[in-house]
């Protein structure tokens, strides 16, 4: 922009209505398709099996396309359409070139939006928030932003700084700063690993909203309000103060997405305070805008529907910004971060603020476009549908977020928060349908109703303002101060990267070199790297964070906080900003590979209430037939937290003390707990015959076929069963813990033999069983049948201790015939039915109901009994 000399505007300046219309129609396409993506994503929360057979329709990929489509397909096109209309009026100059405009249109829509959607659906993306389109598309978008500046930069340059209306400043600033910020979030994190990359990524997460969306939306408000009211805004000077404050402070906000992380605390505090400061700017801007409507027109202008959209956008801008400032405060952030509260916030920003502004802008200019149809009635309908839909969604998700945050702090099992969220998610889908109806009505309003008159949109280029005393000095002061502040804006933009990304990266680099333990295995194998890529493209990081924060709740639930050195090889980092499933930063060694594979094939095989998508395309039709991709993903999962685990001292297993059960077990309550948490693997009837349970290795334990003492039940619930997929359930509330323990004990049945079925006397069975047992079983189960045979240590899970476990004859026969897949227990196909009965009889005789040292019943040999009739 020329600061010293202002060129005289040409006398004939027209709006290029073809480019306005083209980008407007593309914006509708982006809006409807992106909203449909969002609706599918929302439906999958409650119906995870819906469209779950193919990779292209999995939750993560649709979610990527939803947010990127809203940002570029909808808002990007709407803002560009608005620029084609507004810039000639703001600068009194034409755009640079119509041909350039069509190149920009093609590059933006065909290459970036359509290309980006397609590549994401086919599994080519990057797990960076608001930057999910792959690098190739990121390059197209950056090039498009360059063309955008070339298209509109010249008219702005020809218009003097002191003459440019504030809406023009916002458009110019938005285009320029987005061009600068875009590579930082979309390209740099691919080159800078782990925590260092997270700092850059965090900046873009906020800059996408603060530097791209906010300036364009605010420009629309500053344009539409005076255009409708036909009155000047309240104060142009304070509107400029607000503009400068935005660009001085907003870039400093970004790290507030990663507070309580391993990023340097100084950077976190800068972002926290800058976020609060940002609220001051928004109050200033919104006050000026609302005064421009109410004071200048006494409120009567709200009958104009486009202005009503803009007014709503301005009010919601205030609300969402104040909310954002509060969320950035660390104490509050520790409570609500990762929950649906944040999703409510982002929808309020992107729909309530940005989309309402874009709709106000588009409908305003469409009412003035020559030769097009425009239905004010349909537009009014769309307004109310969108207001109602957004209010319902915001209220619902905010409530869901509070519930989730509360449950996470109560030390309940993670799945409880998923269960509690389900009604909220269902309601969210309903509100999404209302919103989609509003979007469709909005688009329809552009094709219905009476047709506007034909002609062209010409800009009045005559000077409106009279010269006044002191004009030259004032002009110089304003030009100088604006140019200086623009320079300061660029400076603060640079400072934001130095202070919040480059400086932390340097400190982190030194810290990582200092703190990386010598024995930590940091490098990933080729398989693990492939797994990381697959994990990324399917959006796993959007439900599972990979960072344990330095908060009490996180430390209690997930363990040691994630340190910077742990993710030093993660390109890009996958810290995540949302938790629908639990954090996976400490996943290594937590679960068996079989559990992971079955869970990946169909999570509901193991966790009945899970809403995680199934990934059947990673298998050959069966959880026990994984493709290499599935094995790679599991291999990657096993790396998460591995370096830290390798360098930690081994934790001595806790000594288990069986608790006294209260009298009168409430089996009914226990069954409810069992059905909610255990039936996925053990089956509804506890016989371990569910698809998930049979697919595990070792297969899920047949609780119904064995009588279990207190001790093994409580031990398994407290600590899990090493070597199996049975996790610890010590997060259950004590009442549920007791109830399910009692239920499992009550379900276990060892039965007895009917006298007619018993093939020999007790003594004979005893002796025969002993001989079989000593021949085949003692090496593992031990002579004392306590599971401590000489080879017992070779196996996990350890061989059964028959002091604590009493098999039924049926279950014993099944195990001896079929083995226990995935354990050290082989099949014994040559044993006869009589031998099996005798062996079972012998094993059963040792059961004492607890881990005690008492001897079992006197052996047959000692009692001198004969074997009569048995081999």
């Amino acid at each position, binding site marked *: 922009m020329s600061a010293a000399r202002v060129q005289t505007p040409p006398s004939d300046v027209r709006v290029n209505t073809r480019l306005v219309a083209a980008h407007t129609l593309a914006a509708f396409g982006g809006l409807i398709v992106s909203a449909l993506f969002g609706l599918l994503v929302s439906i999958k929360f409650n119906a995870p099996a819906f469209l779950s057979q193919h990779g292209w329709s999995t939750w993560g990929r649709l979610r990527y396309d939803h947010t990127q489509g809203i940002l570029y397909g909808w808002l990007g096109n709407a803002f560009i359409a608005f620029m084609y209309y507004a810039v000639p009026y703001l600068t009194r100059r034409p755009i640079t070139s119509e041909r350039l405009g069509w190149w920009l249109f093609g590059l933006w829509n065909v290459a970036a939006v359509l290309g980006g959607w397609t590549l994401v659906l086919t599994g080519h993306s990057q797990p960076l928030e608001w930057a999910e389109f792959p690098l190739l598309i990121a390059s197209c978008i950056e090039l498009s932003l360059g063309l955008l500046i070339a298209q509109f930069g010249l008219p702005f340059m020809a218009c003097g700084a*002191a003459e440019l209306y504030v809406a023009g400043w916002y458009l110019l600033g938005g285009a320029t700063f987005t061009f600068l910020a875009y590579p930082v979030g979309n390209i740099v994190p691919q080159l800078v690993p782990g925590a260092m990359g997270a700092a850059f990524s965090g900046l873009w997460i906020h800059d996408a909203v603060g530097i791209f969306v906010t300036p364009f939306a605010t420009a629309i408000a500053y344009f539409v309000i005076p*255009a409708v009211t036909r009155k000047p805004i309240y104060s*142009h000077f304070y509107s400029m103060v607000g503009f400068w404050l935005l660009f001085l402070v907003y870039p400093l906000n970004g790290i507030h997405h990663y507070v309580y992380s391993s990023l340097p605390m*100084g950077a976190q505090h800068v972002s926290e305070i*800058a976020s609060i400061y940002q609220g001051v700017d928004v109050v200033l801007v919104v006050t000026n805008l609302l005064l421009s409507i109410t004071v200048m027109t006494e409120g009567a202008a709200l009958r104009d529907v486009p202005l009503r959209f803009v007014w709503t956008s301005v009010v919601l801008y205030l609300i969402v910004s104040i909310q954002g400032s509060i969320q950035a405060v660390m104490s509050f952030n520790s409570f609500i971060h990762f929950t649906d509260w944040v999703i409510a916030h982002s929808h309020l920003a992107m729909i309530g603020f940005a989309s309402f502004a874009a709709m106000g802008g588009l409908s305003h200019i469409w009412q003035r476009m020559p030769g097009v149809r425009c239905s004010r009635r349909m537009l009014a309908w769309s307004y109310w549908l969108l207001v109602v839909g957004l209010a319902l969604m915001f209220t619902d998700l905010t409530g869901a977020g509070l519930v989730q945050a509360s449950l996470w702090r109560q030390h309940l099992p993670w799945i409880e928060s998923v269960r509690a969220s389900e009604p909220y998610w269902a309601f969210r889908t309903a509100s999404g349908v209302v919103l989609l109806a509003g979007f469709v009505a909005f688009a329809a309003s552009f094709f219905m109703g009476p047709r506007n008159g034909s002609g062209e949109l010409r800009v009045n280029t005559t*000077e*409106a303002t009279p010269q006044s005393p002191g004009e030259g000095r004032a002009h110089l002061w304003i030009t100088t101060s604006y140019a200086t502040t623009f320079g300061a804006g660029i400076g603060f933009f640079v400072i934001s990267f130095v202070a919040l990304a480059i400086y932390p990266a340097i400190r982190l680099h030194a810290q990582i070199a200092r703190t990386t333990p010598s024995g930590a295995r940091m490098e990933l194998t080729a398989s693990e790297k492939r797994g990381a890529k697959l994990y990324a493209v399917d959006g796993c990081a959007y439900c599972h964070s990979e960072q344990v924060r330095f908060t009490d709740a996180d430390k209690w639930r997930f363990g040691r906080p994630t340190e910077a050195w742990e993710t030093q090889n993660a390109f890009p980092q996958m810290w995540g900003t949302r938790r629908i499933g639990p954090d996976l930063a400490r996943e290594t060694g937590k679960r068996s590979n079989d559990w992971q594979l079955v869970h990946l094939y169909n999570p509901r095989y193991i966790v009945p209430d899970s809403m995680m998508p199934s990934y059947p395309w990673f298998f050959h039709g069966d959880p026990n037939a994984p493709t290499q991709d599935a094995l790679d993903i599991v291999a990657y999962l096993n790396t998460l937290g591995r370096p830290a685990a390798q360098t930690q001292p081994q934790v001595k297993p806790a000594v288990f003390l069986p608790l006294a059960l209260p009298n009168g077990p409430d089996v009914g309550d226990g069954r409810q707990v069992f059905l909610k948490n255990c039936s996925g693997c053990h089956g509804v009837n506890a016989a371990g015959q569910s698809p998930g349970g049979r697919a595990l290795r070792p297969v899920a334990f047949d609780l119904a076929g064995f009588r279990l003492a207190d001790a093994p039940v409580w031990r398994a619930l407290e600590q899990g069963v090493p070597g199996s997929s049975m996790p610890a359930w010590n997060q259950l509330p004590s009442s549920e813990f007791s109830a399910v323990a009692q239920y499992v004990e009550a379900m276990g049945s060892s039965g007895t033999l009917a006298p007619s079925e018993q093939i020999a006397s007790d003594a004979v069975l005893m002796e025969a069983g002993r001989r079989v047992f000593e021949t085949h079983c003692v090496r593992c189960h031990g002579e004392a049948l306590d599971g401590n045979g000489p080879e017992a240590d070779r196996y996990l899970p350890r061989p059964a201790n028959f002091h604590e476990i009493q098999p039924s004859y049926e279950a014993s026969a099944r195990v001896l015939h079929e083995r226990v897949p995935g354990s050290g227990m082989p099949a014994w196909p040559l044993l006869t039915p009589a031998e099996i009965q005798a062996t079972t009889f012998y094993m059963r005789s040792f059961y004492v109901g607890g881990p005690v040292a008492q001897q079992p019943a006197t052996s047959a040999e000692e009692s001198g009994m004969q074997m009569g009739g048995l081999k």
Partner: protein
Amino acid sequence: MTAWLIGAVTLILVVLIVGGRSSSAIRRKSEQPKYQFLASIGVDQDAVKQQQMKEDEADTTKPNSERKL
């Protein structure tokens, strides 16, 4: 670092605001773009000039503390 950054932002804004209020000519000039914009979108020239003069008059007759510019 936090204090320096926030302090620098505040200083720039204070200079901008104080400078912008320092004379009636600067105040008038800084408000001119909003009138020019109205003219560009086709609002009647006379009405625009009338509004500007009305606001200028109000500005010069008000004490400093009551001026919005």
